[in-house]
């Protein structure tokens, strides 16, 4: 217990408190922090429509990525759970395999595939399917693709584990009593795996909304997400207090979502019992 608490304190609580503390001061004239004058100025500045728009856009893109990851991840997890037991481990292993490669390298691989002079476009043009290269890279499409690609495995894992925990006799009973395959899925399987869906969705959303590498590389920097904004405040503008304010807001949003997800999971668990 004690090492775990120390771990949390040192690597989670203290850094987060530092961030919250910084948010109430001003940037010094040459960077750094002016400790002399505590202020609420940063919070006011964060409420500027400009920054709210960036938060809203990030949430919209993260939500889109979440929905797509669920649409791809759920059927994949379902298929794996229906596969022969001896194949399941191998299939799950394959779903996890991309994590063995560095995130940056996988992202650059997408650049190689998608760029106007890249593999996909040259093949499409060679086959005569398109005349001009398709705009596959440096736009919102590429960013969403990158996020979905990177985070779908989390959905697969979460949904798979809740499918495993489901009592198989429940859908069987539904079929015996005359419900069709779709009805059984909608009325029995889906509600019973809602906790897994919520957990997977929370993973994808939280990881996506704070992401800054994917918008930077696949979005060509043309798409600003809140992660990029925070990165820029800390590392380019050297305005740590404002960066801390934005980080604090983002942490708050994530906490609320994770809390909502925990509540949903609890309710689903309670009903099941």
């Amino acid at each position: 217990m004690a090492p775990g608490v120390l771990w949390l304190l040192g690597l989670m609580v203290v850094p987060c408190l530092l961030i919250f503390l910084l948010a109430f001061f001003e940037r010094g004239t040459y960077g750094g922090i002016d400790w002399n004058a505590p202020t609420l100025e940063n919070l006011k500045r964060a409420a500027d429509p400009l920054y709210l728009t960036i938060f809203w856009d990030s949430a919209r893109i993260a939500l889109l990525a979440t929905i797509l990851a669920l649409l791809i991840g759920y059927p994949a997890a379902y298929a794996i759970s229906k596969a022969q037991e001896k194949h399941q481990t191998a299939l799950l292993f394959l779903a996890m395999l991309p994590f063995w490669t560095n995130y940056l390298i996988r992202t650059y691989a997408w650049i190689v595939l998608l760029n106007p002079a890249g593999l996909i476009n040259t093949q499409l043009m060679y086959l005569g399917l398109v005349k001009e290269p398709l705009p596959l890279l440096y736009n919102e499409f590429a960013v969403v693709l990158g996020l979905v690609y990177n985070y779908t495995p989390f959905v697969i894992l979460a949904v798979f584990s809740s499918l495993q925990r489901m009592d198989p006799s429940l859908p069987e009973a539904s079929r015996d009593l005359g419900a069709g395959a779709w009805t059984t899925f909608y009325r029995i399987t889906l509600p019973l795996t809602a906790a897994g869906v919520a957990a997977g969705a929370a993973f994808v959303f939280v990881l996506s909304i704070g992401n800054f590498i994917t918008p930077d590389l696949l979005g060509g920097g043309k798409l600003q997400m809140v992660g990029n904004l925070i990165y820029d405040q800390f590392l380019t503008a050297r305005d740590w207090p404002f960066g801390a304010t934005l980080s604090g807001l983002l942490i708050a949003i994530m906490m609320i979502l994770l809390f909502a997800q925990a509540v949903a999971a609890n309710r689903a668990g309670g009903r099941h019992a």
Partner: protein
Amino acid sequence: MFKSIRTMTAAFAFGLLATVSTALADKVVVSNWDGYMPKDMAEKFKAATGLDLEVAVHATNEEIMGKVTASGGEGFDVLFVSSPFAEALNKLQLLTPIDPAKIPNLKNLYPEATQLQHDPGNTFSVPYAWGTTGLCYRSDVVKTEPTSWNDLLTPADDIKGKTTMLATDRWLMAAGFLAGGMSVNTADQASLDKVRDQLIATKKTLLAYDDTTFYSKLVSGEAALVHAWDGWCNYGIAENDKIKYVVPKEGSDLWVDTMVITKAAKNPDGAAKFIDFVLSADNGKWVVENIMYKTPNKAGMDAIDKSMLEKYPNMAIAPADLLKYEQLRDLGDGMKAFSKTVSEIMAAK
């Protein structure tokens, strides 16, 4: 967010580390960008002076700035930073003045290199490399060769969607300032708004913002015209001789990377010896031949293969011409309005 937490914990851990580190009088600790000086620098320096050299690396100016402001510079003797950061460190009183008596090789610098706007007379910084920011392009792809910043900001139809701009805020905005005949250190709201509107219009014509791989986009043909630091354009020229570099007629900024000695230096004499060693002709030549930047080290420039002056046109720019360009300066309190303007451009659709 993860990055920011990491930065904070790093700064925190660094603070702890700095307080327990012990003084070693015969060691010089330097922080530089990775690959920005010869790999065998430590061995060469040891052979020349008998002093040990410990090299740390930083990825960006901001990173070393964060480390140094968090610890008061404790743990480092010499830092390599760009001139606006040298200026800020000096204003934060974190630097030791340069003592010319201890650095005889200062004589290797061009006279112009002692007249830099951020530090006339090299009182707290010694220049290591310098150059321009301009346009790098595929002469075999563009219909008309670019001559003006407006060729980048309002590209011709044939290269729309095939141009990139630097993502780093100061250079991004500098392109707009120079095109509008303004100072690259402008921070008044009316001018910021004007440049913002231009750059938002430009954004719609860009392939991407890019400050790491723009020259390979030219080589692959993804891009036809990119906003580039001269030395980086040279990396493209080295791979394809149809790639060319031009300083637009409205001018450029003059960027200068410098060496500074921290006030907290444990070994200020060793630090001076290190800077003296870096200013040797051999090390100056190394910068030109390996980094492909110009160096203010005249002895080094004189030692390079003269064919480089023809192949890489930035190398032939005379130091006196460089001095005509304005350097980026620390914006101080102007940074907030500046940074908000950049966010507005980045967030625009």
